[in-house]
């Protein structure tokens, strides 16, 4: 295709009117660059389209220019800042950047330090808390033991003061019951207030009774045995200073081993201890 053919084909007009694809457009530009004739023809076509465009001219609103110039100025301000700074000599720029960077660097370093410190403190406080928790548990356990001990002690004190009260009474008589021949190691004490009909047994040294058997206390008045109650045993030992049945008059006291619940009359074969009331 000669240049003349190319010019008259209408492709340049399509180019001027904007009806070509990207590739077609680049092809026309290549042709125009290679040939001054094509170049001139293309410029002519474009000029016509410029004039065609100008024949449609409409004045835009006057406010548009102000809006546009504001935007241009705003954009220029933003875009020129960097090149201006870049063209400044190195020396003034250097301290500038360090000065600008310093507070942020320090803040960054400080925040890291704070983070590490807080992490360290958290671990410390957590372990302290755990220790404290364990110690508190120990203290609570100790306190419970102490309270138990105190209760036991005060219970014993009550018992002791009760015993003391009983013993302090001037009407109270103490009778020592000694073991009979068959049971020489056995012995116990009976405290008796005849006026108030109170009988207590204490310091019981009797062997542990076989199962189903109990020790029974008897008061002997004019040769007749009177039931004075059963001796309560706990873990093989008699309860200290335990009150028995009321007895108004007796010359002696004795203990026999009887079936649980006691008997109406004593089994003398199973007599363990005996003691006379000293007048």
């Amino acid at each position, binding site marked *: 295709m000669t240049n003349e053919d190319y010019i008259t084909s209408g492709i340049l007009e399509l180019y001027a009117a*904007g009806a070509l694809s990207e590739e077609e457009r680049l092809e026309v530009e290549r042709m125009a660059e290679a040939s001054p004739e094509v170049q001139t023809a293309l410029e002519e076509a474009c000029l016509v389209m410029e004039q065609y465009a100008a024949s449609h001219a409409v004045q835009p609103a006057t406010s548009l220019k102000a809006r546009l*110039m504001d935007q241009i100025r705003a954009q220029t301000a933003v875009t020129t800042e960097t090149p201006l700074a870049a063209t400044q000599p190195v020396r003034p720029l250097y301290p500038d950047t360090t000065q600008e960077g310093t507070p942020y660097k320090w803040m960054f370093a400080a925040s890291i330090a704070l983070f590490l410190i807080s992490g360290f403190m958290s671990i410390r406080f957590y372990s302290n808390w755990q220790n404290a928790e364990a110690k508190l548990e120990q203290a609570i356990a100790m306190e419970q033991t102490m309270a138990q001990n105190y209760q036991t002690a005060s219970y014993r004190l009550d018992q002791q003061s009760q015993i003391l009260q009983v013993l302090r009474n001037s009407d109270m008589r103490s009778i020592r019951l000694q073991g009979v021949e068959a049971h020489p190691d056995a012995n116990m004490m009976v405290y008796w207030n005849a006026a108030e009909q109170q009988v207590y047994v204490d310091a019981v040294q009797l062997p542990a009774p076989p199962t189903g058997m109990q020790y029974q206390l008897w008061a002997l008045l004019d040769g007749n045995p009177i039931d004075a109650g059963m001796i309560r045993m706990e873990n093989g030992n008699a309860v200290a200073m335990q009150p028995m049945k009321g007895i108004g008059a007796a010359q002696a006291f004795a203990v026999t081993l009887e079936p649980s619940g006691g008997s109406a009359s004593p089994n003398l074969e199973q007599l363990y201890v005996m003691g006379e009331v000293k007048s």
Partner: protein
Amino acid sequence: MQNQPIKTISEEELILRLRSQDASAVSVLYDMYSPTLFGVVLQIVKEDETAEDVLQEAFVKIWSSFQSYDSSKGRLFTWMINVCRNLAIDKIRSKQYRVSQKTREIPTAPRAVYGTSSFKPEHIGLREITERLSPEQKQIIDLMYFEGLTQSEISEEFDIPLGTVKTRARSAIKTLGKLFKGRD
């Protein structure tokens, strides 16, 4: 408007000032070319408000991407018109714009409404152009220039052979060239 003489400077000087990022050159550029550019954009988007937005966007683009203008490939004015045309055509092809156009339900007004034959006496009026160009010639030029259709799209949509599209475009521009030359 006639009493305010528009400051015009040569294209070479404008190009130099724009290359050196002289913002005041935009002001001159605007005074010299905004009516034509606005007219073109208005022909494409058919709506004052949108046309203003597009024109503003176009000037910002001309300013910010001026480095991409190659004066050996064509005149500054042609390049600027094409920046405006491309933005305006992108706009009408965007889905959003089509939807807003549909909801407005404004019937497409004839193009002649936007041009005023008496506005610039140094330019050929639209009435004269429509008298000289055949309806087919005018249609083909406007489809290309103001609708952004390519030669093959026109050929397909209007069922015109590709060769006819080319010859019609050529004859239209030849006719216009004669008309404009006669006035110069």
